[in-house]
């Protein structure tokens, strides 16, 4: 799709939330119902259409914020055929948060469960080829893992997640690969719950599969490098419940492995009763691939 860069909006209703559709006051900064920023609507570059939503989902502490921050940073540095232009300064927050913390050898703080505290990234994504440029407006929220878990356990606990799941054009499902490799069933069950939830949101029946492009991303793969060799096989062996559900319920799914941290140290002191993981250096691998695959499917 070729389209010029535009900033004027005329036909679009600037008071209707992009995520849940609730009408808000003109001056509202966040949606009164789901807390999504109203800037997602007002900052839109195309008056005719609304941006597409891609969601990054995963359990608490799986690395959603780090993944999203590095992904946006790579896109904005034009390291591949893709480039990304942030729309609104708020879109840069997640990228800045991740890069500045990792530069200080710290993981970014936990994302609060309160939806009005989430970072939302609104980017114009451009794929350049030798003959043309393809532009796409994408909104990617940084969702708290605990909110997701609560929503999976009791749908409509957080309406914003339900709305996001329904509005999403593509999804990246992040799973903790070393946990799965160590025999924990937690990532497997989380993935199964997530897909079951999506099934319900999309009201798919037994005969029809969910066609939303879904990238299953095995995170922290530096701690179990074998999943880089064959992510499909790794999933089939270590996340068998999820694998079976993907085969039966998803019509457009692909498997990837990624890692952001090169080496990790652990620090503690006699006065502390906890251990702090310290990312000594970053070594990005497999961050762009799942995103590129999803964008190609849109």
């Amino acid at each position, binding site marked *: 799709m070729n389209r010029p860069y535009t900033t004027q909006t005329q036909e679009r209703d600037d008071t209707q939330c992009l995520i849940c559709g609730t009408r808000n006051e003109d001056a509202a900064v*966040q949606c009164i119902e789901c807390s999504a920023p109203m800037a997602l609507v007002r900052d839109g570059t195309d008056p005719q259409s609304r941006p597409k939503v891609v969601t990054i989902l995963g359990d608490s502490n799986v690395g959603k914020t780090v993944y999203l921050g590095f992904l946006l940073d790579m896109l904005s540095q034009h390291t591949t055929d893709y480039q990304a232009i942030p729309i609104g300064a708020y879109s840069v927050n997640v990228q800045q948060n991740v890069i500045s913390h990792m530069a200080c050898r710290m993981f970014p703080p936990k994302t609060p469960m309160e939806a009005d505290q989430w970072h939302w990234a609104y980017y114009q994504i451009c794929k350049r080829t030798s003959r043309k440029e393809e532009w796409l407006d994408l909104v990617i929220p940084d969702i708290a893992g605990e909110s997701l878990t609560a929503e999976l356990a009791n749908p409509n*606990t957080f309406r914003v997640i339900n709305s996001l799941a329904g509005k999403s054009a593509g999804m990246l499902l992040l799973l903790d690969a070393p946990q799965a490799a160590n025999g924990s069933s937690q990532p497997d069950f989380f993935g199964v719950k997530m897909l079951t939830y999506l099934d319900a949101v999309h009201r798919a029946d037994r005969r029809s599969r969910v066609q939303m492009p879904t990238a299953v991303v095995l995170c922290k793969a530096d701690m179990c490098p074998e999943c880089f060799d064959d992510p499909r096989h790794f999933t089939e062996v270590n996340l068998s419940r999820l694998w079976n559900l993907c085969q039966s319920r998803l019509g457009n799914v692909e498997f990837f492995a990624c890692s952001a941290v090169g080496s990790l140290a652990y620090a503690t002191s006699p006065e*502390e009763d*906890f251990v702090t993981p310290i990312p000594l250096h970053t070594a990005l691998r497999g961050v762009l691939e799942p995103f590129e695959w999803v964008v190609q499917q849109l």
Partner: protein
Amino acid sequence: MGRPATVIGGAPAGSAAADGPILCDQAIFTSTHSGVGEGYRVVAASPGIRAIEKVEITRRSPSHGSLCGQDGDAVGLEAYTLPTRRRCVAYCCHAGCEQTARGGLRVYTHVAVLDRAAWGRFLANPVAVHAALAQHIRATGPVLRPAGRLEKIALALTPATASPSSTNGPVGGVHWLDCALAVASDLLSRRQVIVLAPATPLRLLEKVLLSLPLEVRENLDVSVGVKFSASRKMRLVVTAEPETELQRRIAGLDVLLRRLDGPAGQPGTAFAAWERLLRRWWREGRSQDVTRLTTELCRGISCDALDRIAAICEDTDAVDGLAPEEIRSLTARYSTVYPPTKAEQTLVQELLQKATDRLADLQPPTDN
């Protein structure tokens, strides 16, 4: 100090004796790692807590970085009605470092769920429940890894926890009683209010709530010391956040933002007479009269009657300083009206009785 709160197992629901500790359900919402999950969630709850109540507790409880104070001794309060109509009062504090050690402190929320009877025994005052919860948490410490089943909690209703604060004077140069009464008027006008109050928030909240009729305050959703979040849907939020950022976030929401040191309500607005009466009574230390008025007399009346009730109370108080002729005139005025509410009828009867007694006192002694 009263008797310490203790956890009692296997007690029947809501069976506390009139003078004993009050038994109620409890839940803990915090961030821990376990075999079944990670991060903020309801990690333990007594068997009486229903699934829909857990959902509401999850939705409303503060998570990472949501307490206003960022130091170890920061404390917050939340009080709200659950879908089952039971009342939830939460004591929020920090409990060590966040369990993933990614920076910041772990927010720990201990929730007491009170049925109507238990809530009534606390006079629908969440600050009293909060104080009882604080006693319990001081004794046991935060329960991060509950061993076995969590049973009902016994909350002590002691003078230390149940009596309203008697301090009404200025704090830090700010006369916060004026602010409390202005906020009470806002709430009576069905407004959603945020108060920026860097200090004394619990006392401020208590004064606001005790200045409201029982039926208004017993269903009021409030938070103190917890950052504002529209999704928590609180009617009253007492917080300490940067004002400009807060103003940006509430833009377009029908929320009134007040500062503790800001201007009070406009004179002549709704509930001005009620506000004036309570200001005087609080300053004269007549907290018993306030309690009787808000919890007994004003039961079942609409807010429209509050200014009329305040006027009757003002006239009753004024009887002491009136001359006999003025008292007779006042008596004549009140004798000809039929008050529309039971509270007004009671207060008018009391006024007339007081006037009669006062006239008898003023009667010159006869010779025989």
